[in-house]
């Protein structure tokens, strides 16, 4: 299959502007005759549904949550990037574009990323107008902070709850469209299949999660804004219900899954502590603005800490190994996530970990408290402030910046992070891979679009911090509402689709048969237990460090797990009632297939890049890319899982950025 990214011609800085002004439009009158389905109500889904509603399309929006406001975008903490240059520190659209391409280890499409940087500035304006209470300076202007992989301050934030505030903004806009009758909202509806009529996406099959009713919904086009698949690892920072089912059902209908092996492991999460653990908790990257990451320099100190004989505070300054600052002086603690994660793994592998499992390092705020305390005492004209006064003043500043994160840490661990350094370790956080889309955000199935984390388009092999919120909202507010017109402008004479078409009947039957299969397997093991086992395989062999041998082994293990799943699954209750166990079973079944594909993709990519680290390919502990052989997007087709997945390659062409080895030293 020829993959056409449909990148418009011309100078990179003008592509989007020229394309927007020349793309076919749909008149207001015709918009009223066109139906669009949006699946997902997070940043990428809600912003798209609201904006399409405002334009005049008839929108149906679906979420499996009880309310659109619950989508996992709400949990994003640190912030959202935009090339506003309000700090006068040399930021620009080009610099955000460059940082994102470099941060992604030269595995993202130039044109998409440049567009993202261009529209980033509009996102902030839009969110402010909606009433998002971003942090402000005393003078009333917007405040910024830094995130990893950049040397400017371009991150806008609302304390440590930026995702919540942005999602509520999008939710409010969506609610307004619902009240105006432009968007029909379906809560507690899970998409279980996409329906193709004559090769184009024309509807979906959903299950009403309260009654179990299987429903058919038709439209002229379908948009998936259904998030990422980090939960394939079972333990991740994703919410419990995040899943790949909507995207995977599209794959099973012929859509391509691009770069599935690109997984982001976030360096600062609360370490694992027990077998019963259900999820991992992120501590925002913004903490690395002020927190210093370290481990003991001596193994005996690390061991003493692990056994509880010493505390972090007992280790003298000279015996602390600030490994990020030492190894990467130019970026220090603010290196990109993949690099910080790998460095933590390396020091823990050397035996320097500080939690009983050996898998943990410190994130320390003692210096920040001192620094801010002294500055504050100075501002207040305090003469000879006592150590306690300085500490109290400094603590207050740190609390104002990160209070909710410190509180969350204290609740989970029972330890006070103001007095003892936080203990952190990397955890699965985000997936850069996703449905393959062209410049229009359209998958290879005409009429099927994908926005936000659900697509693969902008982050290459590693996403920079505060860029997920930016991409979700860019896609939903400022890209898709335009580019969907390229498809819908050809559909203005297409009448509304009837759900009585045989394609709908076939898809509904497939869904019913599948659910019936799960309900009647009558084995012994819960979907949850299969999910945990899948997660262990994925983390061990397809996690932070991968090898050809391990990946091949993992693939076989997953195939065995799949066979066991279909033979020994037990789902209690029935299919025609509220049944969370049945929901889990459908999601785990899809995770198993995706997991196998991830291992295959990781195996075939014989290089290291960004979050994909193959132990065989490294230089001084850094990822060693092979641009000659792997500068492409790996888009996998796997409609028939009894066959081998089929690889399609989209070459990546860099015309504006010189491809170089990534250095943060």
């Amino acid at each position, binding site marked *: 299959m020829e993959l056409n990214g449909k990148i418009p011609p011309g100078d990179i800085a003008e592509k989007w502007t020229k394309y927007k002004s020349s793309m076919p439009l749909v008149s207001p009158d015709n918009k009223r005759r066109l139906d669009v389905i949006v699946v997902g109500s997070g940043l990428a889904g809600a912003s798209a549904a609201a904006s399409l509603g405002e334009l005049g399309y008839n929108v149906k929006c679906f979420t499996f949550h009880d309310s659109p406001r619950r989508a996992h975008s709400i949990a994003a903490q640190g912030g959202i990037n935009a090339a506003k240059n309000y700090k006068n520190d040399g930021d620009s659209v080009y610099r955000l574009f460059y940082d994102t391409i470099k941060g992604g280890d030269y595995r993202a499409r130039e044109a998409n990323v440049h567009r993202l940087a261009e529209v980033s500035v509009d996102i902030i304006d839009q969110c402010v*107008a909606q009433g998002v209470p971003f942090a402000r300076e005393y003078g009333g202007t917007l405040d910024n902070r830094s995130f990893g992989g950049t040397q400017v301050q371009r991150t806008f934030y609302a304390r440590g*709850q930026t995702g919540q505030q942005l999602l509520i903004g999008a939710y409010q806009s969506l609610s307004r469209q619902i009240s105006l009758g432009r968007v029909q909202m379906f809560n507690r509806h899970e998409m279980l299949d996409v329906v193709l009529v004559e090769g184009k996406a024309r509807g979906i099959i959903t299950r009403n999660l309260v009654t179990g009713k299987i429903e058919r919904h038709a439209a002229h086009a379908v948009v998936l804004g259904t998030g990422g698949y980090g939960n394939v690892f079972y333990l991740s920072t994703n919410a419990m219900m995040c899943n790949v089912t909507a995207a995977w059902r599209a794959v099973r209908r012929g859509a391509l899954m691009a770069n599935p092996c690109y997984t982001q492991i976030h360096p600062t999460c609360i370490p694992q502590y027990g077998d019963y653990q259900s999820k991992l908790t992120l501590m925002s990257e913004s903490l690395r603005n002020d927190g210093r990451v370290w481990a003991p320099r001596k193994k005996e100190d690390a061991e003493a800490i692990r056994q509880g004989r010493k505390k972090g505070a007992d280790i003298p300054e000279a015996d602390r190994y600030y490994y990020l600052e030492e190894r990467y002086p130019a970026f220090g603690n603010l290196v990109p996530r993949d690099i910080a994660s790998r460095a933590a793994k390396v020091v823990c592998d050397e035996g320097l970990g500080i939690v009983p499992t050996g898998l943990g390092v410190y994130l320390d705020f003692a210096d920040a408290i001192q620094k801010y305390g002294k500055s504050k005492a100075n501002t207040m004209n305090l003469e000879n402030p006592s150590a306690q006064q300085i500490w109290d003043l400094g603590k207050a500043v740190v609390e104002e910046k990160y209070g909710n994160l410190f509180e969350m840490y204290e609740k989970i661990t029972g330890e006070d992070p103001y007095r003892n350094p936080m203990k952190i370790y990397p955890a699965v956080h985000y997936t850069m891979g996703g449905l393959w889309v062209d410049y229009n955000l359209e998958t290879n199935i005409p009429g099927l679009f994908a926005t936000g984390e659900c697509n693969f388009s902008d982050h290459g092999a590693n996403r920079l911090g505060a860029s997920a919120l930016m991409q979700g909202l860019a896609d939903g507010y400022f890209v898709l509402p335009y580019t969907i017109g390229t498809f819908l402008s050809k559909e203005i004479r297409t009448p509304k689709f009837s759900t009585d078409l045989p394609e709908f009947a076939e898809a509904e039957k497939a869904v019913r048969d599948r659910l019936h299969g799960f309900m009647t397997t009558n084995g012994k093991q819960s979907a949850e237990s299969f999910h945990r086992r899948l997660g262990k395989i994925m983390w061990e062999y397809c996690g932070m460090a991968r090898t050809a041998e391990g990946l091949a082994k993992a693939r076989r293990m997953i195939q065995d797990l799949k066979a066991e799943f279909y033979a020994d699954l037990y789902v209690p209750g029935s299919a025609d009632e509220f049944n969370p166990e049945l929901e889990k079973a459908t999601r785990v079944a899809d995770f198993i297939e995706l997991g196998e594909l991830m291992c295959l993709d990781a195996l075939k990519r014989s290089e290291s890049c960004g979050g994909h680290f193959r132990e065989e390919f490294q230089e001084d502990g850094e990822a060693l890319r092979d641009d000659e052989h792997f500068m492409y997007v790996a888009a996998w087709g796997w409609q028939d899982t009894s066959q081998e997945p089929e690889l399609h390659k989209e070459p990546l062409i860099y015309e504006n950025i010189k491809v170089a080895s990534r250095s943060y030293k």
Partner: protein
Amino acid sequence: MKLNLKIWRQKNAKQAGRFETYQVDANEHMSFLEMLDVLNEGLTSKQQEPVAFEHDCREGICGTCSLVINGQPHGPQSGTTTCQLHMRHFHEGETIVIEPYRAKAFPVIKDLVVDRSSFDRIIQAGGYISVDTGAAPDGNDILIGKEVAAMSFDAAACIGCGACVAACPNASAMLFVSAKVSHLALLPQGQPESKRRAMNMVHQMDEEGFGMCSNVTACEAECPKGISVENIARLNREYIGASFTSAK
């Protein structure tokens, strides 16, 4: 630690519910919901139906989890959602009573799961600023003082979990409604439609069957996000002002 759980079981909205007793072996480092996961895994392995409860982010931000634990929405620890509550706050041999939120406007769906879509309809009645995508001025054209932005944020931090309703003897939704009215009324962007917003949201709240506020302030005490009842005072001011001056 061994615990006795008295849990509300109810097949669906139409059938009557009852308490059932279970034993579970927990550990002090578990979160409350992980303790329920362990219970459910045990029930499933015995081919019994697990207890339905809602949860998602398990970080205290999505507002999906609920539960009334020993009579308190989100349990005994203040400023904490159920998902952030850990078993170290309970002791060996304790009996824990777990119920759904009880309010007319939150009908039970199954066991501990209730329908909170009434909150969505209140927001749809006016809990927004009417601005289309693309119609925004530069973010710095609207100056907002640091303190005002912080006050607005404090109100906007509401997670829509419904604990305020569950805590209130009248099952009033005043804290929820006032948090949204305050979030937007405090900002200059929210001013043009502030009267309509207050009138329409209060009207919808009454339509949904929530009770009246009688200043008990249990809502504030139980709110996991520390939303202040000052917001209710602000809502009353907005509403009364709107009632006298609105053209409607």
